[in-house]
């Protein structure tokens, strides 16, 4: 494989561009120079740390530490889902529902990929497991947070329509069907758009990375396709799980609509 290594000197040269941006901010009084420098410093520190953590994880190649890293990634993504809700569920549900759906979806799809298509040895080899999980998580997270957001806002805005069906003896899933459909649509649209635009509007980051690392473009494309299929599966599974669980949480065993299980407008559970 032909692969051009870059050293610190190369990086410093490129970093001049950020300094130039900061200079531009000073000259034009954008007042962004501080933020620019802080963001740059954060990025350098965070990515360097991730580099070291991954190096260590790869060297250990231990199922325990790999699982722990995967769990940490899922927990962080769960926090992100919660932060994106305008009116989330109350209590532990605010965090638990999205996180559990993601654990289920991303976990299953990653294990599916590792055990049948990619098949590293050992199967949990962190060099494959963690990047694949990461890519599936990022997109599943977007799908689940959009789905839950549409579900909860729909439940509030269309309370009268949902309760009209409940009052006429409908079961909770039936009463929620129009809102749940909308929630699933908004969860799945981004992946549909991503699949139709990919390759035309932008070259996907992973594929570009592989090409830069010396992989044949056709091989890189195959990998990218595999990842997109996995992402689509993870997003679908995760959104269905989250929206269904959301419908059950927003109703009770007597099939009543329970908007009191949503956090107040300005609060976060």
């Amino acid at each position, binding site marked *: 494989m032909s692969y051009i290594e870059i050293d610190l000197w190369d990086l410093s040269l490129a970093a001049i561009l950020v300094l130039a941006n900061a200079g531009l901010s000073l000259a034009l009084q954008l007042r962004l120079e501080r933020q620019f420098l802080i963001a740059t410093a954060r990025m350098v520190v965070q990515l360097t740390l991730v580099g070291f953590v991954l190096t260590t994880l790869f060297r250990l190649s231990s199922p325990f530490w790999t699982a722990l890293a995967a769990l940490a990634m899922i927990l962080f993504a769960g926090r992100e889902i919660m932060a994106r809700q305008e009116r989330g569920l109350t209590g532990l549900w605010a965090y638990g529902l999205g996180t559990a759906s993601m654990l289920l979806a991303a976990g299953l799809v990653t294990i599916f990929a590792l055990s049948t298509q990619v098949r590293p040895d050992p199967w949990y080899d962190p060099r494959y497991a963690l990047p694949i999980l990461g890519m599936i998580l990022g997109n599943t997270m977007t799908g689940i947070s959009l789905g839950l957001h549409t579900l909860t806002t729909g439940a509030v805005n269309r309370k009268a329509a949902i309760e009209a069906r409940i*009052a006429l*003896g409908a079961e909770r899933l039936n009463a929620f069907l129009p809102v749940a459909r909308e929630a699933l649509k908004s969860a799945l649209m981004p992946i549909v758009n991503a699949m139709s635009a990919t390759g035309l509007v932008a070259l996907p980051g992973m594929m570009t990375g592989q090409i830069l690392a010396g992989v044949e473009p056709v091989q890189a494309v195959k990998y990218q396709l595999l990842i997109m299929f996995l992402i689509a599966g993870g997003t679908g599974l995760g959104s269905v799980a989250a929206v269904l669980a959301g419908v059950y949480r927003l109703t009770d065993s007597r099939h009543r609509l329970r908007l009191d299980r949503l956090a107040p407008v300005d609060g976060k559970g």
Partner: protein
Amino acid sequence: MSPAGPGRVGMFSVQDLRRPGLGPLSFELPQGETLAVQGPSGAGKTLLLRALADLDPSDGQVSLDRRAREAMTGPAWRRQVCYVAAEPGWWGETVSEHFADWPALADLLARLRLPAAMGASPISQLSTGERQRLALLRALELTPRVLLLDEPTGPLDDEATEAVEDIIEERLAQGASAVWVTHDRVQAKRIASRALTLAPDGTAEVRP
């Protein structure tokens, strides 16, 4: 054998019904009769109907024909004890989507002065009074045993009000009963044999 609730056969029985802002209140309503519910705004008239339909959690024993509400699923209870909201909700685009058998309603539609061609109309184009009558029909389609009516004639003119009262009267004759919220004293006297007056603190006085 299902757990027996209080009350007698043919009776809608409510004992110690409580929810925040309402009760405790008790009443019994035999089939064929109407209980008029009156009281100032905010006294909990709508809360009472919603609790009876089990749309909101409440404490106390509510039963129909000696069968406690807990002995049935929520949906089964609501098909028998059916709530018609003062501001009904609509889940579909057009009128007929909200009915199980729209053509079968031709007769009732005519009596309520609603055109049968209305089935294809979008809900958004209907007047408040038209929606109110359609919401009542939607509930009558289920032939519930108890009708919980929240100001069903509030936005209607005299002729339409009379038609609604006649239709409910027929259902009572067929064995249904009604809990009817109305702000109109004259209507309350006309339609109901019993009355329940809610005080601003949510307690109730029942007569006779």
